[in-house]
């Protein structure tokens, strides 16, 4: 939509819509903002009536969080998140291809199967998973999480990528084929750039799910493979005050994912190559 063609009234409505967009963003973000604010308070200021916007800030909560062994948890989380997401995208892209562009005959059944693997609540299967992991000696091992997170995110990645791929017009692919491209070339040069926003959205969602996953992590890890969510939850005490400290921990835990979100949303930019191909 070329902005230069906007007439006076639509520029006004354009500004109003932009303002509305900002209002929505700030409203959605407010609880996060409040959490970050609380992270800088002493416990006695964290939870007051009326809520305090002005207070004496302190860094002691962050200090306590950072000195408790966050580094190893961070490394483990990075390993499990990046590892599983890379695996997921590597497995899901060809699978999505086989379900949308050159589909297998039973594509609806395959899709349904993938979805069905997400239907069993983890809580119900956690004791079996624990016992299997114990028996194969994979308790407290970061690879266990990598494998499980991959399986956890694969269905949604396949579904999402498939949706984006099915949008690609057949003519475009044929045009590339006519030009003599082989399948990997066709994929790399034509397909992936066209669905780049889709890949970005999918990867971001997989990263978020893996990074924040708590239940499997707390059950299957102990000291070596502990991830950030498990570390974070350790600040919730039953016989003390902990709101400010928990806020600090949650804020720190969200920073890496926030960065990923920032990077990914830049790919969610209007159809880069569609026009170029045409």
């Amino acid at each position, binding site marked *: 939509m070329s902005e230069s063609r906007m007439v006076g009234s639509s520029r006004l409505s354009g500004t109003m819509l932009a303002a509305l967009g900002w209002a929505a*963003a700030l409203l959605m973000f407010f609880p996060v903002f409040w959490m970050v604010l609380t992270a800088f308070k002493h416990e006695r200021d964290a939870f007051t*009536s009326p809520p305090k916007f002005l207070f004496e800030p302190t860094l002691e909560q962050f200090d306590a969080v950072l000195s408790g062994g966050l580094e190893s948890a961070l490394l483990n989380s990075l390993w499990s998140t990046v590892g599983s997401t890379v695996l997921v995208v590597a497995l899901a892209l060809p699978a999505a291809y086989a379900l949308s562009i050159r589909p297998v005959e039973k594509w609806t059944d395959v899709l349904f199967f993938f979805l069905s693997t997400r239907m069993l609540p983890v*809580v119900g299967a956690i004791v*079996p998973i624990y016992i299997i992991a114990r028996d194969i000696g994979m308790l407290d091992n970061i690879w266990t999480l990598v494998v499980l997170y991959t399986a956890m995110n694969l269905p949604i990645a396949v579904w999402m990528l498939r949706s984006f791929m099915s949008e690609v017009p057949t003519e475009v692919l044929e045009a590339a084929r006519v030009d003599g491209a082989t399948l990997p070339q066709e994929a790399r040069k034509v397909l992936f750039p066209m669905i780049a926003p889709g890949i970005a959205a999918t990867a971001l969602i997989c990263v978020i799910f893996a990074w924040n996953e708590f239940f499997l992590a707390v059950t299957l890890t102990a000291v070596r493979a502990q991830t950030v969510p498990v570390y974070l939850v350790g600040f919730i005490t039953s016989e003390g005050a902990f709101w400010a400290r928990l806020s600090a921990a949650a804020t720190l835990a969200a920073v890496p994912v926030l960065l990923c979100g920032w990077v990914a949303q830049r790919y969610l930019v209007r159809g880069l190559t569609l026009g170029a191909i045409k």
Partner: protein
Amino acid sequence: MATTATSAPRTLGRRRQTSSLSQERRRRRGPLLPALIFTIIVTQLPFIVTLVYSFFSWNLLRPGSREFAWFENYQEVLTGSRTWHALLVTVMLTVGAVLASVLVGLACALLVDRKFLGRGVCRTLLIAPFLIMPAAASLLWKTTMLNPVFGIVNWVLSPLGVGDVDWASSYPLFTIILVETWHWAPFMMLILLGGLQSQDRSVLEAARVDGATAVQSFRFLTLPHLRQFIELGVVLGSIYLVQTFDSIFMITQGGPGTATTNLPFELYQTAFRSFDVGEAAALGVIVVILTIIIATYALRVISRLFTDPVVASRVLDVSAYRRNEEVAA
């Protein structure tokens, strides 16, 4: 270039004109196999073990109590009123949260699809609720936001005459739906934004030139294009929202009474309060069966995701291949 459905396979397979049906089939299945095999191994093994456990009466706290019990666990689960009440709560919660998050997500996606000052920052802010660890976010919602005395929601609403409303106790289901919508609307927004981005701009431009208003253009061009993405969001979101656990655990503990006890929370109580592994497994299996039934109905009857004509047209046309082979023979 106009291609008909029957000629498409032939054009796409032009490189290997002598490929047989089985060769083409294998070629198509190849890319799918790694993901499929991986998923089968990693997910079906625990599921089978769960299924096996569901036929045993086994309480972790009573060592040596594991014994084969036929369908006792299923009987216990299916005749207990707790299960059905939890099912009702699950349905209400899922429907409410999915609807609300799709609406909010759609609104947000539309607002940030346009170009304006600071759009990138705006988008990142909108995604933020989805990034925070759900357990921590729920706990902070319960205390810093919704607490009747110290929470900021009541403080903000006090000029409007709202007193010390105890949200979590008086409106428990509403509270959970609110927190879940806040958490999942960004997810819907991401999917819908991806869909909006893949829209053909030239068509929209042409419509604008022809004098269509924004509303008309949305209703007749964008919305149909978005339909499959909305359905995708609903399907995926539902699968996740059925399993809502963190917010219930942190905010209401399934209460007051059992007002917000959904199936996952009931499962948790069975598995980690009574430590009845067999019953928990049985309940888990029942949840899977129920979800499969509902999903089958939703996907094959209501949704258009599985009747996508574009994809259907690309599926192997077996008869064309057979004809090919006859000709070649």
